[in-house]
């Protein structure tokens, strides 16, 4: 948790977190828009409902994996973001680099299968705008951890401790991921029932 370890005072910490959040939002937005454009290019309009259905099936498989009912490896890079940036660079530059890196989502290790479903949804949407919004929402959920943790403690020095405690609650976070996937399936079912495309 090097980002939150070096936050310093309240004003400096807020600027650092803001840089991290905006940088991640930028790379997530670009990734989402790119996925939307790729979907528009490679998924014909006539099969867009099928693509949506395939995403719901992928969400069900991902939920099954996280519930321990299915077993399959997630395609991912076994890489974490560069911890040493915090020692080598100014804290603001390090926050910028961490945000850009983590916002790209697949350049670092993926904890649960849900992120793949969001990426598939961006692809199936066939729209740069909606794809960007999806990945942006994912990023804001991810970045919010640090902001909410900061609001929960009296001193910024306690944030790493609190977040470490959260990260140890793997099963709880996995359940949250499954709830997100179940909701996604529900929303897709609703779209398909209404005959609406993304």
């Amino acid at each position, binding site marked *: 948790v090097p980002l939150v370890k070096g936050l310093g005072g309240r004003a400096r910490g807020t600027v650092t977190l803001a840089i991290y959040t905006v940088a991640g939002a930028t790379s997530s937005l670009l990734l989402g828009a790119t996925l939307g454009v790729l979907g528009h290019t490679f998924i014909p309009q006539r099969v867009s409902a099928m693509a949506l259905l395939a995403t719901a099936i992928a969400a069900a498989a991902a939920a099954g994996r996280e519930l321990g009912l299915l077993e399959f490896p997630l395609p991912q890079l076994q890489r974490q973001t560069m911890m040493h940036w915090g020692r080598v660079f100014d804290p603001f530059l390090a926050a910028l680099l961490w945000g850009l*890196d983590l916002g790209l989502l697949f350049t670092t290790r993926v904890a649960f299968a849900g*992120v793949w479903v969001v990426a598939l*949804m961006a692809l199936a949407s066939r729209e740069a705008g909606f794809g960007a919004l999806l990945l942006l929402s*994912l990023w804001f*959920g991810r970045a919010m951890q640090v902001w909410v943790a900061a609001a929960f403690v009296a001193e910024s020095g306690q944030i790493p401790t609190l977040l470490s405690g959260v990260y140890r609650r793997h099963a709880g976070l996995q359940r949250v991921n499954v709830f997100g996937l179940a909701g996604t399936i529900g929303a897709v079912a*609703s779209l398909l029932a209404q005959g609406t495309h993304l």
Partner: protein
Amino acid sequence: VEPVTSPRLASRSSLLVWIVPTPLLAIGALLFPVEAHVSLLAFAAIIGWSQLASP
């Protein structure tokens, strides 16, 4: 820094796991019959929240 075993911080970390997903789940579930697009964004945020992401 307060140790991670501190009961107060431990209970806070437990609360923190659910404090954001709960309202987002409610918003997503309420909206999906009428505005499924917004629901999808809420559920994407929940999925993002669950990632062990902070560097």
